[in-house]
């Protein structure tokens, strides 16, 4: 359906911007392709991300993380492109994409290990300001930044850990901090790469609640291996297999798709 709309607009010469705002699509890709030597990690992927939780699933090595790296500028596509709010962002460096409002977390926890939990989030909040280049004022003078930091910390449940050095946080809370850093950049779209991997059952519950809360405000793209989680939390699911989109649709439809069951779910 979505593809049909897109094509109609293209043929009738209506700009992509219009099609996107009309369709509530905030980010889309067109024929996105990435090779690593002989391996095609992402192969002609067309993706349309709208409100709610959009999960990307697929077996190990399917290309999920590579897709995130293409969306956030950590890799440049070999062909195809990425559009965000009607602007082509593929080819931009990661910091420019972040400045436009796309935030991500990493599959392997990525925080500022030797800095305090508070500073981890504070520096992310500060990233929205030109004052980040100011070397003649005290960082404590940015009172709005400190307020916003405290707010983010309580949103991700870390308000009592502010002074802890990040590397000393329990693992589950490090994952929360990673999400907090992403939220602190005041994004309009959040990409989370396996936020619950390696996390205890209890912490997983917390993180899922956090994701649900985020998705009420912002579109969330979620890479997740646990199929029960995916089926319960997602509004839309894209199944990647060997770099190709194998199926796409709401949870019930993807669950019942025979090819998905064969290629992916059967393997579990």
């Amino acid at each position, binding site marked *: 359906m979505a593809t049909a709309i897109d094509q109609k607009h293209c043929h009738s010469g209506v700009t992509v911007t219009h099609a996107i705002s009309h369709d509530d699509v905030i980010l889309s890709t067109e024929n996105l392709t990435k090779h690593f030597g002989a391996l095609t990690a992402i192969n002609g992927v067309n993706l349309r991300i709208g409100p709610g939780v959009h999960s990307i699933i697929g077996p190990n090595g399917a290309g999920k993380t590579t897709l995130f790296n293409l969306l956030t500028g950590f890799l440049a596509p070999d062909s195809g492109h990425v559009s965000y709010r009607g602007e082509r962002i593929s080819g931009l460096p990661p910091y420019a994409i972040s400045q436009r409002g796309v935030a991500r977390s990493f599959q392997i926890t990525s925080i500022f290990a030797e800095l305090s939990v508070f500073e981890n989030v504070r520096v*992310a909040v500060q990233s*929205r300001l030109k004052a980040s280049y100011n070397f003649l004022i005290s960082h404590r003078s940015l009172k709005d930044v400190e307020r916003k930091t405290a707010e983010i910390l309580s949103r991700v449940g870390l308000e009592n850990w502010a002074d802890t050095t990040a590397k000393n946080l329990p693992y589950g809370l490090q994952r929360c901090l990673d999400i907090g850093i992403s939220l602190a950049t005041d994004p309009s779209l959040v990409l989370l790469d396996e936020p619950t991997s390696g996390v205890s059952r209890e912490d997983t519950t917390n993180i899922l609640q956090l994701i649900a809360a985020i998705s009420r405000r912002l579109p969330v793209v979620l890479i997740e291996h646990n199929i029960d989680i995916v089926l319960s939390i997602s509004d839309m699911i894209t199944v990647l297999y060997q770099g190709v989109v194998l199926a796409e649709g709401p949870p019930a439809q993807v669950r019942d798709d025979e090819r998905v069951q064969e290629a992916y779910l059967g393997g579990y």
Partner: protein
Amino acid sequence: MTENTSSRSRAILIGALLAMAVLFPHIAPYQALASEVLIFALFAVSYDLVLGYAGMLSFGHAAFFGLGAYGTGIFLVKMYPSVPLGLLTGLAVSTLAALFVGYASIRRRGIYFTMVTLAFAQMFYFIAFKWTGLTGGDDGLQGVPRPQLGPLDLGPEINLYYFVLVLVAVSVALIFRVVNSPFGKTLQALRENHNRAMSIGYDVDRFRLIAFIISGFFSGLAGGLYALLLHFVPLSALHWSTSGEVVVMSITGGMGTLVGPILGAVAIILLRDVISNYTESWNLVMGAIFMAAVLGFRGGIMGLLKWRR
């Protein structure tokens, strides 16, 4: 509460340091040695901005120290006898060099960055070595004057010391400000995690470049003061071993603390003065200190102090 106590204890610490600095030339073996300690303390603090805060292991900082010294010295010898203008010339030369070297090296990481900075520093060394007419080549630049500065006669060593003390104190205060600014905090974040810093919107290379330039600026000031102190610019100011020395001071003192590199500079310069009475192989001794610092007490002198507490 804690903030009050910490700001009070910081005020006490700064007061004590300044009091010591004022008394220092009177207890040092000779007054020029006291000035030399301060000059290298400034050099080490400037360097710490790059190594300790931005996490960039430059092995080319002799370039900025040496060019600051030559810029100041050449201006005073060949152009006009004015200390402020001489120092400004040295600062301009070293800052431009930092811009140039930084621009060419900043995109490289790890050992590649280190090698590029070393290569540029070596290039400046050979230019100074060959361009005898301007620099005095191997003999160094002789006869750098210390012209009167308004009412202040910089001739006596004790007067020069207090002049150096004021400039070094102001510079170190400024560098403290820099590391505790929004900019300085960003440097620490990108030192910790380059990719994460990029992914939250920081143009990491630009921050690295600015840090490098600020560091080159203050290293150049240290070099300019060195030319005044010695009445002379030795070619060795540009030699790679000068880069090595500032690395050792920073790491021995405890990098990423600013106070640590000051202590490192004090310890190394005083020790060098004592040991050079007994042996020619100072570099060997310094190498041993360095090994001890890296292997035996990580975190340097600052680490030891914290550990004792």
